[in-house]
């Protein structure tokens, strides 16, 4: 299985791929990752363009690489149809949400001193923090187990949290530490 081999998609299929990600973009409340299950249904179960393992690896690679996690969308597109696939999925994911975000921000910025906009921000802030902890939890869950590697992973998570809170060390070094510990089989 080579990364350079992908199924050849017809123009109609490419358009379908683009359109599907266009719709998912508007449903991606809480981040692009929340629509991953539906992307899986479309490209793996329904069209068999990539395998289950390729789908999971796409997300893991984007997590490990520097940059926003949304890049997993480009990796999926690339695995489905090469460069043009990456363009189709990324453009589909970014265009609608970008337009909506800019419109909504400008609307809100003009009314930022109104009672509603201030209450809106005040009310949603606690949800944001709960959501962040939940995201950390969901990301951590696959690594946590009661065996040597699982305990290593828990230690790694705890050390990352402590160093981030207590020091001004760049997160890059922590990720490098994680890569080294993982490569040695400790986590």
């Amino acid at each position: 299985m080579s990364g350079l081999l992908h199924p050849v998609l017809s123009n109609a299929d490419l358009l379908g791929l683009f359109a599907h990600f266009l719709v998912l973009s508007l449903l991606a409340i809480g981040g692009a990752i929340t629509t991953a299950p539906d992307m899986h249904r479309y490209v793996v179960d329904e069209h068999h363009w990539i395998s289950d393992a390729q789908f999971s690896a796409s997300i893991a690679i984007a997590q490990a690489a520097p940059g926003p996690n949304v890049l997993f969308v480009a990796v999926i597109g690339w695995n489905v149809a090469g460069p043009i696939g990456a363009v189709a999925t990324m453009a589909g994911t970014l265009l609608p949400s970008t337009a909506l975000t800019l419109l909504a921000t400008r609307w809100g910025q003009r009314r930022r001193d109104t009672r509603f906009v201030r209450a809106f921000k005040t009310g949603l802030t606690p949800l944001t923090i709960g959501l962040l902890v939940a995201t950390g939890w969901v990301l951590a869950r696959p690594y946590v187990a009661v065996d040597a590697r699982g305990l290593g992973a828990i230690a790694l998570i705890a050390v990352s949290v402590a160093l981030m809170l207590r020091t001004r060390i760049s997160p890059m070094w922590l990720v490098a530490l994680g890569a080294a510990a993982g490569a040695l089989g400790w986590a």
Partner: protein
Amino acid sequence: MTAPVDGVSAGGVGSAQERPGPTSNSDLFFTFNRLALQGFGGVLAVAQRELVERKGWLSREEFVEMLALSQVLPGPNVINLGLMLGDRFFGLKGAFAAVAGMLAVPLVIVLLLTAAYAEFSRLAFVSGALRGMGAVAAGLIIATAIRLMTTLGSNRLGPPLAAAFAVLTFATIVWLRWPLLWVVAGLGTTAVAIAYARTP
């Protein structure tokens, strides 16, 4: 290195005028490029550190508010955050400069890695390294959440109620596995309604 910015600005009123901002669109581009390239396992933790603690472009309160909006609006959170911040300082061009900075180089890197991964994924140390990086990425997000919890103290809902909403959000997502849309529609509407009643 800039001096640490005091995140607990009085009353959380933090007007943008008192803070330093980006000097140009290329400042935006390169700042976001820099933070994206440090963002292994996601950019949020680095974004908070760079934009709030180092650059001081946003107070902690402003960062949380912007993050809240970027989470409620559809689309990738940090991309939405970049759009909002860029737009606030330099309009449409600023918004695109921030997002282009965040995406351009990482996109090339991740696609190169994708091509390489197919060749090297059979090696145990490669998949092990991916695991270790994933665990650290989870830790970074948790640490960011803990640091931003301080903003609940100045929330107009009052700290106990604000904390209760944060815990309920966590519980409905992690244990009850509600779709996010329900959480926002249910808890979000309630929290905003209470906040509206308490906002002068």
